């Protein structure tokens, strides 16, 4: 056989693979660079006071506690909206819906909902919740908006989790004379739960990091105290970063706080994603069917 040619083919392979390795280094380098940069600049700002106090002295001192809490409320609120809706939709889609034109259209709709820009969700939330339902700028308006935003994520993850439950479980249950609903409740849902949770955590992370949808529906610049009802507006981490970085007379003085806030937000969001990823990996490893 032609040895020279063989060698050339191997060389070509090596060269191509090195290019691909370069690509991945570049991509991950960008991620690493950003995280490192934020760490270096933000770590100095982090302190107990920063995490547990309200802002002081024209936002140049103090902390971001109200923003942390606000983001927490908004995110949990979004989950309260998205989880029941999303899981029911997923159950319907994977267990009840009959394959056909209608289902294709519904699926397409959900898929497209996932592609709707977040700022459009913001507009929608403004028109429907803030103005039409007269919720005003409030936790409830923001949560509903964010909830709808992450709905496709939750539906997708739940459907996937349900789909991964082997059909033999369903058949076994049905063959024992269980109704469909009994089968879903007693066998399918428990088996799918870890997957649904993972998906929800991912959704949680997404909701925590979004800015555009809460800009007109929930967020405010400064609030010292925690909100008292769901009708109150709140500070939120992503919005806090945005306004501190672009507004106010003291942009330069608040720079360390900006980095600190970015660091807190990144830790929260990436932490949630990491948690989901680890959970999923564990699930795959320990999956027994």
């Amino acid at each position, binding site marked *: 056989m032609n040895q020279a040619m063989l060698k050339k*083919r*191997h060389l*070509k*392979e090596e060269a*191509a*693979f090195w*290019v*691909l*390795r370069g*690509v*991945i280094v*570049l*991509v*991950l380098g*960008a991620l690493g660079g*950003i995280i490192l940069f934020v760490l270096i600049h933000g770590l100095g700002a982090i302190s107990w006071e920063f995490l547990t106090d309200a802002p002081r002295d024209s936002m140049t001192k103090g902390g971001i506690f109200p923003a942390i809490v606000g983001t927490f409320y908004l995110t949990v609120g979004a989950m309260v909206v998205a989880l029941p809706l999303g899981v029911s939709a997923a159950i319907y889609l994977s267990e009840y819906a009959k394959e056909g034109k209608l289902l294709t*259209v519904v699926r397409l709709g*959900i*898929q*497209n*909902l996932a*592609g*709707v*820009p*977040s*700022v*459009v969700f*913001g*507009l*929608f939330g*403004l*028109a*429907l919740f803030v*103005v*039409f339902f007269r919720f005003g700028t409030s936790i409830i308006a923001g949560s509903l908006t964010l909830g709808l935003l992450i709905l496709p994520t939750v539906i997708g993850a739940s459907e996937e989790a349900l789909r991964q439950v082997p059909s033999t479980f369903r058949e076994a249950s049905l063959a024992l004379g269980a109704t469909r609903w009994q089968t879903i409740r007693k066998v399918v849902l428990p088996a799918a739960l870890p997957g649904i949770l993972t998906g929800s955590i991912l959704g949680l992370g*997404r909701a*925590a*990091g*979004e*800015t*555009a949808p809460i*800009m*007109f529906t929930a967020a405010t610049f400064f609030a010292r105290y925690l909100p008292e009802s769901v009708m109150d507006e709140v500070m939120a981490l*992503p*919005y806090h*970063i*945005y306004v501190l*970085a*672009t507004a106010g007379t003291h942009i330069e003085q608040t*720079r360390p706080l*900006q980095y600190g806030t*970015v660091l807190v*937000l*990144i830790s929260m*969001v*990436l932490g*949630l*994603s*990491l948690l989901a*990823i680890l959970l999923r990996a564990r699930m795959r490893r320990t999956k027994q069917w």
Partner: protein
Amino acid sequence: MLVMALIVLFLFAEGAGLFVTVNPIDFIFGKLWYPTYDPPDFGILPLIMGSVAVTIISSVIAVPLGLGAALYLAEVAGNRMREIVKPAVELLASLPSVVLGFVGMVVIAPMLQEWLDIPSGLNIFNASMMLALMAIPTITSISEDALHSVPRELKEASLALGATRWETLTKVTIPGALSGMGTATILGMSRAMGETMVVLMVAGGASQIPTSIFDSVRPLPSTIAAEMGETPVDSEHYLALFAIGIVLFFITLGFNLVAAYISNRFQQKGAATL
């Protein structure tokens, strides 16, 4: 589905009001965006061109990188590497956009201006780089799925015939995954098109039709985000912003439909069974 319908309904209910006074053709093709002057001009062509510009440039950056990363994950990475790299790419996907906007504004913009000696670091190029970072994970993960769904039997058949891994990749795997990779690219572009915070903070905000990649632009989403807060409910300007929302909605809808169409139409026929 209901949500989808509601979104369309409300966007239309609000946005359509504009077209009572403004001709839709003038709206879309008008070259001047002066929403608060008397008389106002509601021409969003510069905004559309701004969106198009950042979308194209960011794809130029993101597509090769995103596809390359997918190929790496699918074929080059060892098992151990994969288990590290894949979650890392997913983490990139979960970086909040406001953080990318922040980095682009505070870090990249001054650097660009310094190095390239350009009038402003807040421009198409900077925004596109940040948007590319958002699009890459989308492109990578969908293409990787596509590469994976090429039946193993086909890859094995090729290898068993004495093809190198690279030859198998280019001759069998990539052709088989082409539609998936196309879908991935379009969805990545759609993501860049709809992203708000990055362009709001980094693109510069000038409502002009760009002529260079270092021009500042004012893409559709950033216009909505910047101006919505200040405009009175039901004013013409408010309606115009909703109309922009409609345009944006339909552009991304178009992208998504094309993506869905491609992935359905060219779905891998599966292992060639009976």
